[in-house]
Each structure stands twice: as structure tokens, then as C-alpha cells.
């Protein structure tokens, strides 16, 4: 088990900053997910860790060993590529045995390990085939088997499931996670799929524009997002953002905009009074934390016209047109609401997030 430390890592392509001054500590045996939209630099970071890409500045350590300028072959790593990269001119068995052969393992050991890996991924019956004769999912298994067969110090995965069809992806998610738990190999997993990140990662590192936005367990990322980017990127449908002003009414602080007035939650009070000079904030609330009134009247209320309904049958997503813009509400189950009807909704006060308007950072950090 190896821990990976990244210090002040920068990678520029000409003038484009793909990764910008990044510090990240990955614990031994951890499954960390690098999550972000396409072009955010997460794959570049992975390639810097692998040695396929030379860093512009900064350092990469495996335990206490400086790996920054080592070629990939000196790093004792494995990688699973997005498009599998299973060599088409070799049979499956040869593909899996290849890393062992390169590292000059004895013949017996190679046989044993190939058998072990192919058993683990249930591809024994495919060993004699060529990759062209395999389905995408099978090729993915071969790629994973090839990656684990050497028992690498660090296992890198670059969107390994994104080329699989939806059903298979769900199944492979749990399989990859279980496999990693069994092998306890330090794993760095790149994805743009938040569901993959939430379900698989011990910790999630959220990226945007080459910069680390937040690192933490999924619980923290979801419930205490560090800024509006993380808040908006995680969660589906997206969190609602409403520009609000702080207003004092009868010595009580309220968040106000147009026809919405929300009493300031206790947890925000200390922070907000500290910065009494700042008046403008962004209120964030997730669609599942807005309720149709009638169920409960204890929360602040606002009104809106039903603009559009997404009937997912398990849930209903309601797009409301309000005076301060669109509001998305998620309600469990099948709802029957006709468009253009005016309805009242209430916010879960304890689930409100507050961000500075200028920086987008959460006021809680």
C-alpha cells in the first residue's frame, strides 16, 4: 500500500493551465475519485501521476519517493484506460500476462497470477480469444485484470466505465469497488459521472478549471459543498441558486428577494453578523429539500407557476416559474399537476446553503 502526495503540481499546455498549483494527499489503500466536468484537468492530473505527462512544476511522491521525473515504467503503477487499450494483436491471456513478462516474473508465477486475475474477473473462458472477439464489458474486464495482475503500488483508472452501456456500468461500479476493497490497492479513479463518484469513492476530489474545489467523503461533498461550483455540480437535478440580500426586520435577520423571505438559520447567524458589511449572498437549496405545501406549513413559503413537469414516475421534477426565477422541485412519486397552475412550496430551513455572492464560496468554510 502506497500513499500518494502531490505538491504544488502545475501542468501547462502552452499557455493553457490544465492543472494549476494542486496539492492533494491520497492515503494508502484509499479509493479516491477525481471528479469534474470535461476539460477540468482531472485526466491531465492522472497522466502526470502516471508519468505519461511531464509536469510543468511541482512534485509527485509515492510514500517518500520522489516520482516526479521518473518514466512510467519506473513507477510500478497500472492503469485502466477509457477505451480499454487492450492490445488487439494479442490473445487475452497474453494481454494479461504481458506486464508480468515485462517485469521478468518466472513462468510458473505468471501462470498462477494470470489464473488468479482471470478467476477474479470471471474471464477464464475468454483467455484464448482475441480482443476483437470480445464485447465492451469483457474487454473492460481484461483491462482490469491486466492492471491488477502485477499488484501495482497505485492503480489509475481513467473513466473506465464511460464506454459501457448503462446497465453494465451500474454492475461494474460495484464490482470495481468490491475488487478494490479486496485488493486494498491505492486507487485513483477519474470520472465525470457524479453517481460513480458518490457510490465508489472513499473520498471525492472535485475539480474545475484545473483547480481543486473540494476534497472529502461524499457525505461532506453533498451536504456541505465548499462553493457554488461543487454545490451545482453534485446532485441531480441541480441545486437551486437564488440571489438574496440580508435584511434586518425587528432585529431579526432575514434572507430576502422579491416575494421570498426566509429567517436566517442559527448556524449562519454567527458568520453573517461577522460580515455585516456584506449584504449580498447566494442561497442554495436542493430540489429535494423544497416541499409542496400542504404537507407541512412550518417552513417559509413562496409561490410559483408550474412551467414544466418531468415525470420520471419514481419522482416528479417540477419546474416552477417564480418572481425570482426558475425553481426546480423534486417530489417523490407520481404527481398530477397541470401546467400553469399556481402552487405554494416551502423550503427546508436546515438544508439551506449560503454562499458569498462575489467568490461563490460557502460562508461556512
Amino acid at each position: 500500500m502506497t500513499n500518494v502526495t502531490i505538491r504544488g503540481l502545475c501542468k501547462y499546455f502552452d499557455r493553457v493551465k490544465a492543472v494549476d498549483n494542486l496539492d492533494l494527499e491520497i492515503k494508502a489503500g484509499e479509493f479516491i475519485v477525481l471528479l469534474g466536468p470535461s476539460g477540468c484537468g482531472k485526466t491531465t492530473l492522472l497522466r502526470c501521476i502516471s508519468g505519461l505527462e511531464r509536469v510543468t512544476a511541482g512534485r509527485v511522491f509515492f510514500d517518500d519517493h520522489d516520482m516526479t521525473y521518473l518514466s512510467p515504467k519506473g513507477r510500478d503503477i497500472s492503469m485502466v484506460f477509457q477505451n480499454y487499450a487492450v492490445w488487439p494483436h494479442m490473445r487475452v491471456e497474453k494481454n494479461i500476462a504481458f506486464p508480468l513478462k515485462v517485469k521478468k516474473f518466472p513462468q510458473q508465477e505468471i501462470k498462477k497470477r494470470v489464473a488468479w486475475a482471470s478467476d477474479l474477473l470471471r474471464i477464464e473462458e475468454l483467455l484464448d480469444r482475441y480482443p476483437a472477439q470480445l464485447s465492451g464489458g469483457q474487454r473492460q474486464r481484461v483491462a482490469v485484470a491486466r492492471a491488477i495482475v502485477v499488484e501495482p503500488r497505485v492503480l489509475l483508472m481513467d473513466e473506465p466505465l464511460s464506454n459501457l452501456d448503462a446497465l453494465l456500468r451500474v454492475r461494474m461500479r460495484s464490482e470495481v469497488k468490491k475488487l478494490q476493497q479486496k485488493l486494498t490497492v491505492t486507487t485513483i479513479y477519474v470520472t465525470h459521472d457524479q453517481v460513480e463518484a458518490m457510490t465508489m469513492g472513499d473520498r471525492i476530489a472535485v475539480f474545475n478549471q484545473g483547480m481543486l474545489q473540494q476534497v472529502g467523503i461524499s457525505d461532506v461533498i453533498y451536504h456541505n459543498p465548499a462553493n457554488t461550483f461543487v454545490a451545482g455540480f453534485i446532485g441531480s437535478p441541480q441545486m437551486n441558486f437564488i440571489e438574496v440580500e440580508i435584511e434586518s426586520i425587528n432585529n431579526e435577520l432575514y434572507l430576502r428577494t422579491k416575494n421570498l423571505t426566509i429567517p436566517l438559520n442559527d448556524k449562519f447567524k454567527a458568520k453573517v453578523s461577522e460580515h455585516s458589511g456584506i449584504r449580498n449572498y447566494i442561497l442554495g437549496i436542493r430540489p429535494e429539500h423544497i416541499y409542496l405545501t400542504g404537507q407541512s406549513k412550518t417552513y417559509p413559503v413562496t409561490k410559483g407557476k408550474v412551467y414544466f413537469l418531468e415525470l420520471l414516475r419514481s419522482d416528479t421534477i417540477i419546474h416552477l416559474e417564480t418572481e425570482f426565477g426558475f425553481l426546480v422541485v423534486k417530489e417523490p412519486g407520481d404527481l398530477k399537476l397541470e401546467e400553469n397552475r399556481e402552487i405554494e412550496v416551502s423550503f427546508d430551513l436546515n438544508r439551506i446553503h449560503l454562499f458569498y455572492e462575489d467568490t461563490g464560496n460557502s460562508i461556512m468554510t
Partner: protein
Amino acid sequence: MENLIALKTNRIPWALKIRGVLTILVAIFIGVWFLTPLVLITISAFASPRDYYQIEKVIPTHFTVEHFHALFFELEGWQAMLNSLKVVGLTILFSFTVGLPASYALSRYKFRGKSFLKLSMLASRMFPVMILAIPLLIIYMKIGLSDTIYGVALAHTIMVLPLIILVSASILASVSVDYEEAAMIFGLSRIHAFLKITLPLALPGLVASAILAFIISWNEVFIATILNLTNRTLPAHIFRSAMDSPDYFKFTAGFIMSIPAVIFIFFVRKHLVTMWGISLK
């Protein structure tokens, strides 16, 4: 009524039928266009002189291999053919030793002046061979390369190198970088990754570009005639000797010229098909 619809929908539209027939006609036309000379050359190459000169006999009935014997052994065609094969072999060897690293760089790296470099390679082909040949001969005479097969092979290398580089670059580019990078991740250096992974995957395409070099070098007459006097390649030899001979000799020479290319292409035609296709993916 329902039957009527079934009847109608089962019918192939006229336009499609005509298009099918036209396609076949065009294919036949192209086939005839290219194969007729080959067939005529082959027939005439084996025709006995009497049949050949008999005007009313379109297809000769008496065949002989006498011309081949004469051309090969009495007119030293055998030696010329060996020379030709050596020149072709050396040309392919030289142009790939120099060209493959260049095409790898063009296919894998981005660098300043890349497209200019590609263009300037083609520019070297814009020089007429006639202008190059005489200075080349003088230089060769000074350094002792004139009248050797190495000299001709080098000159042919200059001719085919730009094409080899450009064609090979696009073939190497069609082999996904991921295969190579995967090999590097699993413990190979870049050179070994190229030799063990990329080269075998690109081989069919590279063989096809070798054919290109083969055909250019095999058919080249001008430089080969000027540079060499005694060690002539086959086309140069035929150009000098066979052209003064009776017509059926010319056909025999033509047949000999085309046979190696036909055999060569026959063996690699499977790879020619895959050159741009699926097998590299």
C-alpha cells in the same frame, strides 16, 4: 387491397435496379480497362514469332518460352533482374530505416513547423529527375558510387522517402496512442513499446507503403539508365536492349516487368485492404 400493398412494397424500385446494373457495368468497364493490356502482354509474350506476325490470328495458337530463355540468358536479363531485386530491397531498407523514425515523430508529436516540414518533403519531389540525374552521376563518379546498385538504391531512396514518410505517418497515427501508452505504463520504454505494440499493429499498413516503394523503384528507368552502365537494373536493361529487338521480345520484357509486382501485390493484397480499415482499430 392489402394484397395490392404487399405486392407493391415487395417490388424493388426501378431507380435502384438501374443503379445496380450501372454499378456492375462500370465495374466491368474498369476491369477490362486495366486487365486488357495485361492479357495482351501475356498472350504476346508467349506467342511463337510465326503466330505473332500472322495478321489474321488475333489469338496465337502456338506458344513458346523461347523468348524468355533468350531474354534471360542470351541478353543477360537474368543478371539485370537480380540487380533490380537488390536495388528494390535496398531502397525499401534505406527508406524505412530513415523514414520510420521520421514518420513516428510526425504521427505522435506536435511541434513547430510540422506542416512546413511535411510540405517541404513533397517539395523535394518537385525537382524533375532529369535535372537531378546528371549532377548525381558526377558526384557518384567522384565518390565511387557510379555503376553500383547501391548508387541506384540511394537515388531511389531519395525518390520514395517523402512518400514513405507521409504514408507511414498516417498509418502510425491510425494506431491509437493508448496502446503504446498502456505498454509504457506496464513497464516498457517508448522504443520497446513502439517495437512490441505499435509496429506489429501498423505492419499491414507499413507493408502496403513498402509496396509503394517497391513499385516506384522497380519501374524506375531514367536514373537507373544514367547512373549505371554495366550493373543495369531490369527496366534499364530492357530499355537499352529489348527495344531494338523484335516486338514479341518487347512483350516478353513487359511480362517479366509486371510479374513480380503482380505476385507481390497478390500476396499482400489482404493487407492492402486492411491498410485503411478495421484491423488497426
